């Protein structure tokens, strides 16, 4: 593998690394036929980000496939985020001094080599150790989303600045008439300490406004900020694709021919509207997973599994069935849950999954965070959904109260 990034594109590449560094701790590196892919996933696997730099982004791009006998030999590796970030640390000086950046693979020493060719003949060489791994990929179909919004970065940045830096999650509420961003407040014991903030935007503010179904989705602000650090500097519009709560939201940045960035964030499952979600999340499954989750039987298996789970004698087969769909913690009350499928699993996986659920980690015993993913597809889970589950009672009441806006001041 060998690629050379021309000087004017080094900053874009560096900024992509910066943006990824706000999400994950490792950067997955994969040369493809149609470009170089950089990907990352966060520790709780609730956020996935990928950039694909097309061959036209580079002055020379050789994915190394030609010299290999079969595709399996193609290098797929991951490197530590920190070491990669240190290469592109200072973007402003990169822009001024670097003429080109060459990325090669030194198979003999097992190093991924970054060379920055700077002014005055200075060459900075970074030899990074890597770990070979499988492709990191989230399965998400852009076409399956009911709702698509395209906005100028400026608009999203302006929207985000209205929230406190400490704000963890925001709720995006869309209808045909308007779009609102609202700060999401988890069970805060002292209501006196929380400011509720809502920002309303009219459809005209968006370049593309296509809302088929009203939705109310909650996701992490931190990762949205990561998206915006890239898009703001590149000054490119961001397209949001989403469905209903519990289904992931995708933020896409696309410069037609040279590169594209996709950020996939898990959203908080709305437990009250779960039954409606079930149907659509089934539809949204990719073909691979559809085969595994034979539709009607899944829920039955799941409910069996949960019962076994509650009796704290979980059989291995039950676990396997459960792990195809993401599992909620056993603390969840059982009533009315029997016939629904938790939509927080983004992707199916034919093998038993690593779960965020503590019971599963116990059962499988082998899960160490940060180990290379063994399989082609990985799940994204929303870590926070657990805390909401356990505290679902108070939070739902809180929502009711919030909904009733008895503003009697009368404008």
């Amino acid at each position, binding site marked *: 593998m060998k690629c050379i990034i021309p000087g004017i594109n080094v900053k874009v590449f560096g900024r992509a690394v910066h943006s990824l560094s706000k999400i994950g701790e490792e950067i997955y590196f994969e040369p493809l036929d149609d470009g170089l892919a950089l990907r990352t996933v966060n520790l709780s696997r609730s956020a996935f980000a990928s950039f694909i730099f097309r061959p036209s982004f580079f002055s020379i791009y050789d994915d190394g496939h030609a010299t290999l006998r079969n595709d399996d030999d193609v290098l797929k590796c991951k490197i530590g985020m920190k070491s990669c970030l240190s290469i592109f640390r200072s973007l402003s000086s990169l822009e001024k001094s670097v003429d080109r950046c060459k990325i090669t693979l030194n198979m003999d020493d097992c190093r991924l080599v970054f060379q920055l060719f700077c002014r005055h003949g200075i060459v900075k060489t970074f030899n990074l150790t890597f770990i070979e791994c499988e492709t990191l990929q989230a399965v998400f179909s852009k076409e399956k989303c009911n709702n698509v919004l395209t906005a100028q970065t400026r608009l999203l940045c*302006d929207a985000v*600045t*209205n929230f*406190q830096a400490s704000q963890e999650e925001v709720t995006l509420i869309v209808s045909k008439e308007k779009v609102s961003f609202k700060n999401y407040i988890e069970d805060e014991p002292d*209501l*006196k*300490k*929380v*400011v*509720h*903030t*809502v*920002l*309303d*935007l*009219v459809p*005209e*503010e968006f370049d593309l406004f296509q809302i088929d179904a009203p939705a109310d989705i909650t996701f992490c602000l931190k990762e949205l900020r990561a998206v915006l650090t890239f898009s703001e500097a590149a000054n490119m519009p961001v397209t949001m694709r989403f469905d209903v709560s519990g289904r992931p939201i995708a933020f896409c940045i696309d410069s037609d021919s040279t590169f594209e960035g996709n950020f996939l964030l898990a959203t908080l499952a709305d437990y009250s509207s779960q039954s409606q979600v079930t149907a659509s999340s089934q539809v949204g499954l990719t073909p691979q997973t559809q085969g595994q989750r034979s539709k009607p039987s899944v829920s039955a298996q799941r409910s069996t599994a949960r019962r076994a789970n509650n009796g704290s004698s979980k059989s291995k087969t039950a676990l396997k069935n459960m792990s195809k769909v993401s599992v909620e913690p056993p603390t969840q009350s059982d009533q009315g849950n029997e016939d629904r499928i938790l939509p927080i699993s983004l992707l199916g996986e034919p093998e038993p999954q690593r779960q965020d659920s503590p019971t599963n980690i116990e059962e499988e015993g082998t899960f160490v965070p940060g180990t290379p993913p063994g399989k082609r597809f990985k799940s994204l889970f929303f870590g926070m959904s657990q805390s909401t589950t356990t505290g679902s009672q108070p939070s739902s009441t*809180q929502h009711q*109260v*919030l909904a009733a*806006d*008895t*503003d*009697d*001041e009368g404008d």
Partner: protein
Amino acid sequence: MRFRGKIIDIGCIQHFTRVVTTISKLVKSCTLRITTDTLYFILSERMVTGGTGIWCQVSQNHFFDEFNLDGVSAEANEIYLEVNPDLMVRALRTAQNAKSVKIKLTKKHMPCLTLEVELPTLAAHSRLVTHDVPVNVIPRRLWDEFEEPELPDFDVTLFMPCVKILRNVVDRMKNLSNFLTISANNSGEMNFGVSTDIATIKTHFKDVGHPNWRETSDRDPKEFADARIDIRKLAQFLVGQQLSSVKIICNLVHEHLAHFFIVHDDVSLQYSLPVVNS
């Protein structure tokens, strides 16, 4: 009980933000008293809890373009709220280039001061941001606790020396001791000092201005009045206040009280610190 006010002028929005920011640097929670012509930010600590006093008066018509108030009753046309000024500041900070800010008392999940910020956009429409800042309504029977403190007869009244310099001095002294002694006389001498077991440090200011603010007592102009106060609270005031960098009046009652006074057309702030005896 209703309250609704609207600020349109950007200068007024920013100035109002500065006022609330100043208060927020001094205290975590205070009382906001709203009357038909004035807003008051009040803190009156009892002696046992520190005895700090804040009395900040904001004349409504300098800031608000619309101001509607229906108080508790016709004869007591006022509202007393317990507010967290810091939360208000955070909400107001998003309004630094707003077209207008509406502040109103609402009942949502709890009583709130709702700030509706109208933000400009490049196009014709505007964006609306709503912040619900939780507040407590103070019942009428407790209103007596928030009466304007009567000003005592001060022994010494002087302008403070340049705040920038004084801020640095006090910041350094803060590392040495918890208490600072201000001693001043009516002929323009002012000393700020700390003393510890091993050192005594004093900064002298000479020819400090004398405001013709009130009649001073027929005291010997050379006689010093001393006030030993909590240095942290003084530092907070000097660092956090955003209202004025000159013309802060310092009043002393010998071994009793230090009183700082900022007066503008539209805003006045009194900050009083009791003397701590060694």
